[in-house]
């Protein structure tokens, strides 16, 4: 019952040590390093699982994207949103992007987890050339890249 280290390796070492009387030195890894390793495996597996199910385009700041999102509050209706990606935060499975759009003349920003099952479809409509990673300056522009 182990997660950290190599259980098979230690088991085999155990048997050999019981057979021969010379005790073999078992390598013990530092727990914090192995812990991080397992977290990375878990994260990568989860991301790959989502990527297998749905096609997720490479979303970068400056892209104008169209999303089909299920809104749980609104009786799980499918709504289509279109806006410009102004920021992306890379954090493995918890990667999010910030989308800005105009609703009735008012700017609306919303943050979506990239790998959320609520996003049914993602389409990149246009790619604007930008020179920043975070396009927060668009908040001060009236007509944001349109």
């Amino acid at each position, binding site marked *: *019952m*182990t*997660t*950290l*280290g190599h*259980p098979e390796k*230690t088991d085999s070492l*155990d048997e050999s040590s019981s057979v021969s009387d010379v*005790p073999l*030195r*078992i390598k*013990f890894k530092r*727990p*914090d390093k192995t*812990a*991080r390793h*397992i*977290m990375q*495996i*878990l*994260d990568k597996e*989860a991301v790959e699982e*989502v990527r297998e199910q749905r096609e997720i385009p490479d979303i970068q700041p400056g892209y104008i994207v169209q999303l089909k999102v*299920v809104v*749980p509050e609104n009786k799980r209706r499918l709504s289509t949103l279109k806006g410009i990606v102004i920021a992306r935060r890379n954090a*493995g*499975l*918890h990667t999010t992007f910030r989308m800005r759009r105009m609703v009735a003349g008012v700017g609306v920003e919303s943050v979506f*987890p990239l*790998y*959320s*099952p*609520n996003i049914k479809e993602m389409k990149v409509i246009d790619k604007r050339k930008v020179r920043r990673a975070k396009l927060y300056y668009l908040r001060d522009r009236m007509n944001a890249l349109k």
Partner: protein
Amino acid sequence: MALLFSQPYPCPPPLSSSSSCCRRNTTTLLLSSSFLQPIRAHQLVAPLRKNAININMVVVSMSLEAGIGVMGTKLGMMTYFEPDGKVVPVTVVGFREGNIVTQVKSEATDGYNAVQVGYRRVRDKKLTKPELGHLNKIGAIPMRHLQEFRLVSVDGFLPNQRLSVDDLFKEGDLIDVSGTTIGKGFQGGIKRHNFKRGPMTHGSKSHRALGSIGAGTTPGRVYKGKKMPGRMGGTKTKIRKLKIVKVDNQLRVLMIKGALPGKPGNLLRITPAKIVGKNIPKN
């Protein structure tokens, strides 16, 4: 005089406790000899079980566990997406080599029922001779941590038996997790006890100060247990009724909803959740 006093003192408590144990037994079911003859007690396990619960209710009900638990290592936190799109923050708990029963304590031998579990394999030279001797007695591997789980009955537990996490915990189960919190050092009353802050401006001089700590001449002292600044964190805490979101059998990992004490690498004690009236008898 000192010798006289010290000699009889260690003797009476076990004697008196065992006699009281027997007396309690006679009053409840008239099986006074069952504790003296462990073989007979084994034969009468089924009718005795109800009796054992009654005894434990009288003696200790606070530290009883709802079931056997395991020890684990905190690995970190991550996100888990439910199928309906809900984001659940989960803590990942891994298991190093161990979780082996090292000793089974019974009413007859130790006065209470408990299962001692060892966790985290280490090199022989990392342990002291008494620790090694205790583990070698049952032929277990050298392990760093030993903890006891006090149970109503210890039937079916054998020394050197491996506890499997997959069998003990299922997805959706509620568990209690205890561990050592992150030490925060010497902290003031606001952070440590959630006191209110004073006004920062308008001529106020009590910004983050404590305020009054009691009345004047009567009682003329500060009451014991008054909440004051001091060392915060680094203590054992138990977080109750956490839900198991996912069990990963390949990586041998539990995903538990919510935060757990300590940083990654912290030792955790995981037991089934205690729910009074359901798996813990009401007093």
